[in-house]
């Protein structure tokens, strides 16, 4: 099953887990299936009209899914999706 890696700032909203695994033929399905159990994490990633928030960047390998097929990007069994958080500490 493909994996969604959760960055540190968002882990409190995913019961502290660093990665979530679920079924999903594409990015949208994986997100739906992993976020189902974590409504607060979902709230941070999706806007109220159910669109990925602009500060949320999801990468498949080295590529931003925005540069692939967006949330329709197909996934293979062992794919790892990475959420890149916006952090500001200095």
């Amino acid at each position: 099953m493909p994996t969604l890696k959760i960055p540190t700032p968002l882990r409190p909203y995913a019961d502290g887990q660093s990665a979530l695994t679920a079924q999903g033929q594409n990015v949208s399905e994986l997100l739906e299936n992993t976020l189902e159990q974590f409504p607060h994490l979902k709230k941070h990633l999706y806007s109220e009209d159910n669109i990925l928030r602009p500060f949320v960047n999801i990468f498949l390998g080295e590529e931003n899914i925005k540069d692939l097929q967006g949330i329709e990007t197909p996934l293979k069994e062992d794919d790892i999706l990475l959420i890149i958080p916006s952090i500001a500490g200095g």
Partner: protein
Amino acid sequence: MLPELSHEEIHRYSRHLLIPDVGLEGQQKLKAAAVLVIGTGGLGSPVALYLAAAGVGRIGLVDYDVVDFSNLQRQIIHGESRLGDLKVESARDRLKDINSEIQVDIYNEYFTSDNAFEIAEPYDLIIDGTDNYPTRYLVNDLCVLTGKPNVYGSIFRFDGQASVFFAEQGPCYRCLFPEPPPPGLVPSCAEGGVLGVLPGTIGSIQAAEALKLILGIGDSLIGRLLLYDALDMSFFTVKLKKNPDCKICGKNPEITELIDYEDFCGVPAHGHDAGSAGENWDITAEDLAVKIKEGGEIRLIDVREPHEQEISNLEGSELIPLGQFASRLSELDSAEEIVLYCKSGTRSTRALEILVSAGFKKAKNLKHGINAWAIAIDPSLPLY
């Protein structure tokens, strides 16, 4: 014409001069270069130290703060002897001690849309070592509008990011993050913490990128974002592309001058009172102490993380960490008098917003958190 190097300088920089990619001409380029470092904190410390040691001829330092005890865990340019001193003066003196040949300009002021152009004007590139979103967007936009590279670094707990945002050759910060997260979503290092050595790693990477840009050598991080995880001890690089719809560096830019960044990000950049929810929603440590002494029935809710309770704790309080707060509202009753607290009042203000939006009218925020209680009421508690 590049500046000549004295015999003393040739001796000092001999390890650079031995590298064919640097050589005499490279060292002269460094001497001729001017770099502006925004922030002399966790990231700014190693960046400025290494740029000074490397012989960058002119270094500008922008900060408005004074050296605090809690800075010394990671801000290695400052020391105990400079506690309470202006950070820019403490940093300048340290840089001049490392390398008296260089010019160090200090700007003891907030970096804002009003002064950014003037301050940045003499410098070739800008290092983003700030600790807040408004200043990060300001630095980005300034760099896009003036055509200067923005050497970016950012840290949180064990995670670091670095890149070079240079709109003339690649994406800018806004291409990756068109807008900041909503206020309160991502904790600052003051609330969430940061491993002291983390800015050392990321700041050193920023310094290396700055030197490479000045020397014109190697592959810079333009178009790439470096992700560092100190816990896994892993580095990972992802590709960044220019966003044709970017509001400042895209094909039809909407932003053509510096804007109000505090308004854009919905948070103050500096000099703000993060630990206050506003006069009507705060209770001071003194007032809370009186209420408790008078036997008032107050439910004290600690919204910090469990491990922080080992540092300090208010007697009789219950723990509901901010991350769980919204999902545990059913444990609270809007008829009760509730006081929320955290370390310094920032997270409890966020929790209060959740309560207020759920219709609670009798809840208050302990202004400036348990640290304020430790100062005013119970000095046996440590400050952290």
